[in-house]
C-alpha cells in the first residue's frame, strides 16, 4: 500500500498521545490527584505486573494479559488496581492502622474489544478507603468523586447509586441454578422487566420474590426510587437493609449539597465480582458511557489475610479528557510561543539560551528544521 511501512503499524487497542492532547491529559490528572491529596489520601505506585493469582476473579481473568516468568510462575500485567492495593495493604502495609487512605494514577492493561470508550490500555485514577466505619467511608468517597468532577467544571453530571445487596438479597435462598441466575442478572442489568420475568419462568421461588425481581429492573431514577424500593422489598430483610444503607448515604450527600446530582439505580448489578455493598457510576451529558465508578468490597482483603471492609472508586482519564472536550471545557490556554535562540557560534548561543531558561522563558534552541 502507498505510504505505509510494516513497522509503523500499531496493534489494535493501544494509544499514543501527542502534544496538546498529552498536555490536556496531564492537566486532568493533576486536577484529580490534587483532590485526592486534598482529602488526605496517600499515593501508591504499585508494580506493573504481579503474580496472576493476585488478580484472580471471574470477571477479570479472561481479560488479563498473563505470561510465564523465568522461574515458571504465572505473572500478569495489572488489569486492575484494587486487587493490587488490597494485597499491598494486607502485606507490606499490614502494620499500618486502619483506616488506610490510598490513591493511584496509572495504566491498566486488558484484553478488550476496542469500542465505546474501551481500549486495551486504560489510564485509571482512583482511591481506596480500607477499614473505617462503613457509612462514613462511603459518603467520603462519594464526596471525593463528586469534587473531582466539580474541580474539572464538568457540567450536567449524575451520580447513580446502587447496592448489590438488593439483587443478592432477593435471589438469596431462591436456589436458582447458575445459568438461570446469570440470565436473570443480565436481563436486570439491561433494565428489561419482561426479560427478567422470562428468565424466572419455571423457577421455584416464592411469588413475592419473583414479583420483586421483575420489579427490580424498573427501580432506577431519582432518589424517590428508594421509597418505592423500601415498600417493594419490605418482605425481604437483606434487600430492605441494603435500601436503608443507600438511603443513609443519599441523605448525607444531599445534606452536603449534592442532592441535585443524585440518582438511584437498583438495577445496576454489573461490574467486578468483588463488590459487596454500595456500587455507583458517574455519568455526564455528552458521553455515552460512564466516566467512572466504584463501590464497597468488604471481602476482598480477607483473600490476602487482612480482613478489612473497603470502598473505592476510579475515574478513566481518557474518558474524562474526552468528556471535557465534548463539553467544550478548556483547561488552560495554550502555552506562549517559545523564544527562538539561534546564533552563529554554538557556545555563546547555548549560553544565551541557558540564561533565558534561567529567567523562566520557554526557549526553542536553533530552528530545529528537518535537514
Amino acid at each position, binding site marked *: 500500500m502507498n505510504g505505509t511501512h510494516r513497522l509503523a503499524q500499531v496493534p489494535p487497542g493501544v494509544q499514543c498521545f501527542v502534544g496538546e492532547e498529552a498536555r490536556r491529559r496531564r492537566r486532568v490528572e493533576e486536577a484529580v490527584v490534587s483532590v485526592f491529596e486534598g482529602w488526605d489520601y496517600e499515593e501508591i505506585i504499585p508494580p506493573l505486573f504481579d503474580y496472576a493469582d493476585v488478580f484472580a476473579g471471574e470477571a477479570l481473568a479472561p481479560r488479563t494479559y498473563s505470561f510465564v516468568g523465568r522461574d515458571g510462575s504465572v505473572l500478569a500485567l495489572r488489569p486492575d488496581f484494587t486487587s493490587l492495593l488490597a494485597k499491598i495493604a494486607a502485606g507490606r502495609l499490614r502494620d499500618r492502622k486502619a483506616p488506610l487512605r490510598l490513591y493511584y494514577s496509572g495504566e491498566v492493561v486488558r484484553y478488550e474489544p476496542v469500542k*465505546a470508550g474501551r481500549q486495551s490500555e486504560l489510564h485509571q485514577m482512583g482511591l481506596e478507603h480500607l477499614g473505617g466505619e462503613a457509612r462514613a467511608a462511603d459518603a467520603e468517597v462519594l464526596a471525593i468523586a463528586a469534587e473531582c468532577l466539580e474541580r474539572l467544571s464538568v457540567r450536567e453530571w*449524575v451520580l*447513580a447509586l446502587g447496592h448489590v445487596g438488593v439483587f443478592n438479597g432477593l435471589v438469596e435462598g431462591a436456589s436458582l441454578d447458575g445459568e438461570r441466575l446469570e440470565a436473570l442478572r443480565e436481563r436486570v442489568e439491561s433494565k*428489561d422487566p419482561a426479560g427478567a420475568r422470562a428468565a424466572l419462568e419455571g423457577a421455584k421461588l416464592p411469588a413475592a420474590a419473583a414479583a420483586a425481581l421483575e420489579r427490580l429492573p*424498573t427501580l432506577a431514577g431519582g432518589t424517590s426510587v428508594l421509597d418505592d424500593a423500601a415498600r417493594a422489598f419490605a418482605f425481604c430483610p437483606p434487600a430492605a437493609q441494603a435500601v436503608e444503607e443507600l438511603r443513609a448515604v443519599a441523605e448525607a450527600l444531599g445534606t452536603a449539597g449534592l442532592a441535585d446530582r443524585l440518582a438511584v439505580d437498583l438495577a445496576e448489578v454489573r461490574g467486578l465480582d468483588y463488590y459487596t455493598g454500595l456500587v455507583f457510576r458517574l455519568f*455526564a*451529558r455528552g*458521553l455515552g458511557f460512564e466516566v467512572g465508578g466504584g463501590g464497597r468490597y468488604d471481602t476482598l482483603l480477607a483473600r490476602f489475610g487482612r480482613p478489612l471492609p473497603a470502598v473505592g472508586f476510579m475515574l478513566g482519564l481518557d474518558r474524562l479528557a474526552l468528556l471535557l472536550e465534548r463539553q467544550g471545557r478548556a483547561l488552560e490556554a495554550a502555552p506562549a510561543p517559545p523564544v527562538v535562540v539561534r546564533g552563529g557560534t554554538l557556545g555563546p548561543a547555548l549560553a544565551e539560551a541557558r540564561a533565558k531558561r534561567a529567567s523562566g522563558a520557554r526557549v526553542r534552541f536553533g530552528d530545529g528544521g528537518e535537514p
Partner: protein
Amino acid sequence: MSLTVALSKGKLLPGTEALFRRAGLPYPDGEGRKLVVEAGSLRFLFVKDMDVPTYVEYGVADCGVAGRDVLLETGADVLEPLDLRFGHCRLAVASPAGSGFAPDRAATTRVASKYAKVAAAHFLGRGLAVEVVRLAGSVEIAPGLGLADCVVDVVETGRTLAENGLEVVETVAESSARLIVNRASFHARREEVQHLLETLRRAAQ
C-alpha cells in the same frame, strides 16, 4: 437540545412509525432520503438495522428501536426497558426439507447466516463444532448450492424458507421490537427519557 432516536430503515420501520403516531409523538413527515431529521422535540436517525444498537451504545443516539434478534447479534451494551410488541419473528435453524439434517453426526456443521455470532454461540453451546459462513443476505439459497448444511435466519411466516426448499429445524430465539436506551442518557437525560419511555409504554399496550 432534543433527544436523538435511532430507527432502522428496514422491516421495523412501518411498525415504528405506527407506534410513534399512535403515541402522539413527533415523527418526520415524508422527508424523502434525509437520514437525520428533526421533528418537534425529537431528532431521528435512519440507519441500517444492525447499526441501531451501535448508535445507541456510543450515545450518539439516546434511544432507538431495534429487534431482539439484532441486539443478540450485536451484543451491544444498551438498556432494553420496553418490549414494543411488534415486529415479532424468531431466529431459527433451517435446513433443506427432507435432508435428515443431523449436526450430531457431522464433525463440523457449516452454517450460513447474517447472524454469525448468534449462530456460532448456538451450536458451540450445544457442544457442536461449527463453521459459520457470514453472508449479508439471500441466506436461504446457501444450502441448496452446497455453501452450507443449514442456515440460521429470521423466520416470520416461513414462506421464504419453503420457497427455497428449507424447513425449520429448531428455534434459536424469539424476537420483537424493543426500545433501547443508552446507559448514560438514562441518567443524564432522565426526565426526557422517562417521558418517552412512558409514552411508548402506554401506546404499546
